């Protein structure tokens, strides 16, 4: 087919389209959704029992701010990347992946001295609630987010999907931070990070399939 024929064909069959809302509105929508999901989950399961004690500690506040910032940043980047022509700073992406690697390395390093078969069995047996929290929040938010991103035109499906899942992961971690009082490294690793990793890997595969459809349309 000649290019002129293609142009005529596309122009003849053009229909009005519903424009994608401006970035600020999409961003606000997902911040609102994240907050609503957090409120609902915490409202349903209840705050951790020692919240009054730990809320004023520096470590708790630091963790809360870090998780909230990561959630906001990764949501912003995923939404930006889903639209052609929007620029995304490589530094911001490095902050996200760097923090993931750092926190995981710190947890693995802290878990190693306590690692034994008995500790592993005990931790897995007592981490059921956290696995459920992370799984439910992660799946609910992740599916909504990926489906929404699909409505745009992500030119880089893997990168966009990974950021969307990072946003989901940091939201789940933030919510679980208010639900679970355990600070044992092995519990954090197996009860919080492991289900997140499972959700993320599942989401990456799903995200690739869901978001790649834009590229397929174009071929």
């Amino acid at each position: 087919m000649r290019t002129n024929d293609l142009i005529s064909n596309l122009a003849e069959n053009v229909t009005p389209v519903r424009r994608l809302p401006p970035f600020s509105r999409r961003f606000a929508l997902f911040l609102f959704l994240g907050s609503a999901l957090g409120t609902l989950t915490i409202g349903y399961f209840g705050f951790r029992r020692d919240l009054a004690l730990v809320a004023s500690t520096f470590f708790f506040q630091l963790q809360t701010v870090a998780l909230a910032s990561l959630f906001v940043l990764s949501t912003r980047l995923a939404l930006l990347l889903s639209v052609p022509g929007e620029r995304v700073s490589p530094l911001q992406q490095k902050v996200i992946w760097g923090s993931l690697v750092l926190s995981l390395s710190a947890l693995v390093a802290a878990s190693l001295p306590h690692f034994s078969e008995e500790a592993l069995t005990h931790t897995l047996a007592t981490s059921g609630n956290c696995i459920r929290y992370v799984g439910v929040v992660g799946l609910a938010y992740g599916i909504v987010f990926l489906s929404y991103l699909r409505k745009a035109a992500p030119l880089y499906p893997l990168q966009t999907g990974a950021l969307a899942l990072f946003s989901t992961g940091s939201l789940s971690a933030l919510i679980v931070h208010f639900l679970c009082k355990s600070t044992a490294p092995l519990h954090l690793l197996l009860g919080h990070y492991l289900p997140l990793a499972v959700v993320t890997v599942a989401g990456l595969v799903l995200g690739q399939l869901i978001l790649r459809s834009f590229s397929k349309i174009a071929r």
Partner: protein
Amino acid sequence: MTAEQELELASLLVKAQEGNGEAYRDFLDRSSHYVRRFVARRLSPAQTVEDVVQETLLSLHSARHTYVPGKPVVPWIHAIAQRRVFDYLRKRMRSTEGKAGPSFDQDEWQPGEAESEATSHLAVRDALANLSPQQRDILGLLKIDGLSTREVSERLRITEASVRVTAHRAYEKFKSYLLVKHYENE
């Protein structure tokens, strides 16, 4: 493209989003000239350029709802065209690898077809410098001196399999270096 032309192009796209066929035809027609120039600087021959232009136009069509009125339209078109060029190069690399199989000698990939002779020369020199001495020697003996795998193995006193493996790795490294440089230059 001047600022005035860009504004005009943006207003045509906004009308096209509302379903105006004439404005859309005009938009696609003008965009195709811009896209063709962009693609032709990166790819050749003409038939390939036209194929990628058409794929870009189809992508513009699929993504037309993502353009936000008031935003610059050229970066939006540019990002889509750039992605299509990248997709084409990736597809070509994959199909070349598929045809070539494990044998290094059969690979016919020609890096930087559309680049000027001087730029290509510098890029090839840098890519060669990026290889290890052994990889460089084997690549030189195979590709420049035209020796067979057996002759290279006898000359360097290593096994034929080792020559093949090293040559394959050298070639992969060489190819990815050129590809990365190609994108950095854009």
